[in-house]
């Protein structure tokens, strides 16, 4: 009895999840010849708010396609039956910064706000330097969420930690709570915020609001319709893998791996495990690299290059 109940409950959840995705997949409209059209798959995504269009052809940047947004209330809940995970392969990163750029474009951020930051790290004098892209770790024990006085930052059932910019009072406590310097503050109203004409949704993390905190959001609006986050989509090296940890699968768009095998074979680890925040972002160590570290300095803006001039690696090179 109990078991069959449990089964029912589970399959209902599966159905919810499948319905959602199937619905999101079919967004095409228009007139179709009835006889040929497969009606069985016509459940359109009711959960997904449709874009308003007046029939004009609109050009949208293919690198940062906008997606329909769910309401604020729904975005507090999470995608049913999912638990997301990211794997970043440090061996392939050459600081191309495409992740940063696509993310900024997709979230309508000014240049001064980066959800994804690329660090040049070197753990000690003799150890090897490496490029270290750092999104939000969407910790399973997120201190940022614990300390928020108004519940403006919250962890959803799918593991994603989001910020509700309509609720955040801007106390910045979460910024000191996060040990990974992940969060950014809108110190004023940036013009880029106005580019986004859609209604605000925490899932999209856009448009930003002055006096509130924001950060990397794992792009749940994209994931909801089966797309990878901006950074994973746009990395030319395929450094960033993303997927559902319960499904044990991650993908960077071209390759798909079993998460457990990837972590086992490449000795994946989490950054600063010792802090007990239990990140859901894993790193693959920078072994057998495809590029020398110095390649990362090519084609950088002057002010981006300057960021690294005080790192031990660059300093030791100058000598």
């Amino acid at each position, binding site marked *: 009895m109990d078991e069959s109940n449990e089964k029912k409950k589970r399959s209902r959840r599966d159905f919810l999840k499948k319905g959602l995705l199937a619905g999101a997949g079919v967004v095409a409209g228009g007139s179709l010849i009835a006889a040929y059209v497969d009606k069985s798959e016509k459940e359109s995504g009711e959960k997904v708010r449709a874009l308003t269009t007046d029939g004009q052809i609109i050009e949208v940047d293919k690198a940062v396609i906008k997606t329909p947004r769910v309401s604020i209330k729904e975005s507090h809940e999470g995608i049913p039956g999912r638990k997301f995970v990211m794997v970043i392969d440090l061996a392939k990163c050459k600081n191309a910064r495409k992740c940063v750029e696509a993310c900024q474009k997709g979230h309508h951020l000014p240049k*001064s706000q980066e959800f994804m*930051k690329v*660090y*040049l*790290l070197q753990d000690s004098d003799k150890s090897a330097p490496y490029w270290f892209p*750092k999104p939000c770790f969407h910790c399973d024990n997120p*201190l940022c969420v*614990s*300390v*928020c*006085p*108004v*519940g*403006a930052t919250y962890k959803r059932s799918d593991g994603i930690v989001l910020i509700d910019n309509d*609720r*955040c*009072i*801007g*106390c*910045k*406590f979460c*910024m*000191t*709570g996060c*040990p*990974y*310097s992940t*969060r*950014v*503050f*809108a*110190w*004023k*109203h940036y013009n880029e915020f106005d580019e986004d004409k859609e209604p605000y949704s925490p899932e999209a993390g856009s448009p930003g609001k*002055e*006096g*509130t*905190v924001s950060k990397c959001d794992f792009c749940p609006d994209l994931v909801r319709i089966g797309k990878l986050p901006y950074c994973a989509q746009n990395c030319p090296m395929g450094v960033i893998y993303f997927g559902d940890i319960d499904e044990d699968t991650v993908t960077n768009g071209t390759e798909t791996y079993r998460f457990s095998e990837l972590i086992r074979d490449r000795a994946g680890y989490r950054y*600063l495990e010792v*802090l007990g*925040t239990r990140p859901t972002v894993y790193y693959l160590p920078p072994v057998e690299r495809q590029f020398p570290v110095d390649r990362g300095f090519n084609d950088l803006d002057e*002010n*981006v*290059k*300057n*960021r*690294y*001039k*005080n*790192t031990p690696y660059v300093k030791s090179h100058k000598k």
Partner: protein
Amino acid sequence: MENKPTREKLLREFAPQIERISASSVLWILFLLGVIGIGVYAFVTQVTEGHEVTGMRDNVVWGIYIVNFIFFMGMSYAGAIISGALHLFRTEWRKPIIRMAEYLAIISLLIGPGYILLCIGRLDRLPFLAVYGRIQSPITWDVIAISTDIFGCLIFLYLSMLRDIANLRDFSELKLPKWRKKLYSALALGYTGTPEQEKRLKRATDIMAAMVIAIAIIVYSVLAWIFSVTLQPGWHSTIFGPYFVIAAVYSGTGVLIITMFVFRKIYRLEEYITRKHFVAMGVLMVVLAALFGYFTFSDYLTKWYGSEKNDENLIKILFSQYYWPFIFSNYIGVLVPLLVIGIPKLRTINNILISAIIVVIALWLNRYLIVVPTLESPYLPIQDSRPAWAYYNPTWVEYALTAAGVALFCLLFTLGSKFVPVMNVSEMSEIPKSKGPFTEEESLV
């Protein structure tokens, strides 16, 4: 009714304080209002132009606003603890200074929280703290604790002023406009000093004194926990609660000494506030200096001894970039009072005043050194080409608002002293005539 002459005499003596406003005090008040005006302008700038006008950025998200917040709250708790403790222990020499301690408690408590509001990006959403409040957040603890504290301090202050207000109401020689007399008589609650009333008042005051001490300790620990519950190197420390409490009382004692000195000069209270009072407060300060030094030492010793990477880094910064502030706040700020008051020959009023000033500055710097360098050395090294992102530099807005806070503090103190004498007349009049306001026989603490 043998105290009657004393009370009359005292009232007559203090009456000019509250009756007249001298030209110089008008100037003084205008000056303070000017400074506050600049602060208001700075505040308007910050609201209209965004927090970008401050020196705070994504790494150093809290700057001198939070330092001021800790500082003023610390003074408030010090005032509360000192006045509460002096009251409970029935220390005789407290009488001339207890009103100042109470004023200190309530005035800085009104200013302190203002600074945390300056840190908040969306002031229009403050009600959310109540609407969506989460009990797990130390900020919520702080909101609850501070509001509880404000009520407690107000009640306590009122209780201890009640008899003086009644005195002023009944003091017929007072030359004051009608409305003020009416105000006194309304506030006096018809207190006439019947044994029954006296008993009730005493009971209530005792209870509130105890409450105020307890709350002050809790509230200041909560404030310390805002820092120590995070994982930031330099903040994540178990002794922050008691450390902050001690530091608070320490700095508050310093401020109280300065206040005593100032009022003594302005209102010519040399007869009542004597060197003995300064020495008594000085001794209190020495005890606190020792405790403060001890906490500081054990905090940094444990960090330095193990030299965990981030702690080591922090200490390196403190001893290089922040060398002088660090030396001043943690060495000079501890050693000067120890020497000045420890050596009996040096215990002059002026010397005690100077060490009090040093203590106050040192403690402000101490808070700065707790807040800012930690934020400048997070776990992931700051890699940023924008200097403001890497190093904190307060802007004129922040300085203006800091000055405005100090000015407001002085202003409220001035106005307070114009409302009810800065000395507790009724308590002082209880001193047996033979003994005088302060007697040699009494122990110092």
